[in-house]
């Protein structure tokens, strides 16, 4: 946290009530490389459309509730990102496409029409992203928004959970064009660091991506996969995992097996939600607010 930063003012400007995460250098202000205007976006992740099981008996309604909740936000986000596992896996390619189509139809009700997608292993690992690309285009891409550079990485189309040499070269070439103080937001599905490899909560060559990002002073990674809020620093890079929209997972290593947190009938949808991320003009700090899905 940057102590020089006017937190109250920032929260007011960001229109959010959550925690502020300051990335990068002291002072938090780099006018030439930080956002040019205030904005916020929403991260949704791990919706697992098509899942049927006891961990979420309301699976057929959860995504629709999330869409309604985002549409009901007091302020309208500039855009929305889905960070993977849009659908629950299936061995049947036809069924996978059916689930992707249904997912696309449901999120078509979002009022915000600028929506970005990256795949999770459930969407893409069994066919190397073929069906995903038919619906949502490239599995990795970059875009810029109001002075912030966004890099959406694919660490799932390779079933070993790797980014791969070709994409790492692409990342290096993209980063080479940037000022070292540029505000950079990375979107990924799996954690880029070894959070808990025993549960496959890692990216095989994530360290290579982190190494490429390390020279940059203002890098924040938003990811999914682990179905819970989690915050971690590798050097000066902040990594934030978001809650899922299907079922929560236990804290890393907190129990012998990676079984979902059981559905609580007394508190349905507990542990599910999405995230708002606010950026303020001229500042490299980001405001992060977790929004719980209400019953």
């Amino acid at each position, binding site marked *: 946290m940057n102590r020089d930063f006017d937190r109250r003012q920032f929260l007011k400007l960001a229109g959010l009530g959550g925690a502020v995460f300051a990335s990068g250098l002291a002072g938090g202000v780099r006018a030439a490389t930080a956002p040019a205007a205030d904005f916020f976006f929403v991260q949704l992740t791990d919706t697992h459309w098509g899942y049927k099981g006891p961990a979420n008996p309301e699976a057929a309604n959860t995504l629709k509730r999330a869409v309604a909740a985002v549409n009901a936000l007091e302020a309208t986000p500039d855009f929305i990102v889905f960070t993977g596992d849009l659908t629950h*896996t299936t061995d049947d390619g036809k069924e996978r496409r059916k689930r992707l189509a249904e997912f696309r139809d449901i999120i078509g009700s979002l009022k915000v029409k600028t929506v970005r997608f990256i795949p999770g*292993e459930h969407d893409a690992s069994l066919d190397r992203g073929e069906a995903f690309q038919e619906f949502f285009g490239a599995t990795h891409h970059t875009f810029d928004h109001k002075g912030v550079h966004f890099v959406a990485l694919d660490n799932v189309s390779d079933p070993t959970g790797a980014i791969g040499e070709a994409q790492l070269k692409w990342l290096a070439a993209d980063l080479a064009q940037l000022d070292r103080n540029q505000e950079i937001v990375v979107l990924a599905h799996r954690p880029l660091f070894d959070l808990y*490899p025993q549960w496959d909560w890692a990216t095989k060559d994530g360290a290579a991506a982190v190494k490429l990002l390390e020279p940059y002073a203002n890098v924040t990674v938003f990811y999914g996969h682990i179905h819970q809020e989690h915050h971690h620093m590798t050097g000066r890079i902040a990594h934030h995992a978001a809650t899922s929209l299907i079922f929560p997972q236990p804290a890393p290593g907190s129990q012998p097996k990676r079984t979902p947190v059981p559905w609580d009938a007394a508190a349905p949808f507990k542990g599910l939600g999405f995230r708002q991320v606010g950026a303020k003009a001229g500042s490299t700090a980001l405001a992060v607010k977790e929004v719980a899905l209400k019953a």
Partner: protein
Amino acid sequence: MLRRRDFAAALAAAAGLAAAALVAPQIVRAGGPRVLRIKARKFEFTPREIVLKRGEPVVLELESLDRRHGFELPSFGLKGEFVPGEITRIAFTPDRAGRFGFNCNIFCGDGHDDMEGDLVVTE
């Protein structure tokens, strides 16, 4: 990854981890390390629990019964791959006792998250 083409890299990576890769079956001779075969199919390992003695050299043989699966034993830095039609061998000497989880690290379908096992190392 400890398949033939990755032998050199895997061997180098394994140095210092009390582990090394063997890729040629003739290397495992009579009187050599105990050989223990692990079979993988969606979504289970057989055996699910491996019991070894601390300090006892073994060779793990990885055999797939259906498709490609992964083998990762993070506590010892071991990684391997189950490839249909091939046997992957990992030479390994556990240097500490305890219970250590291993898992499939190649996404293989709806039960992938349940594809886990335990290595028990006794004194």
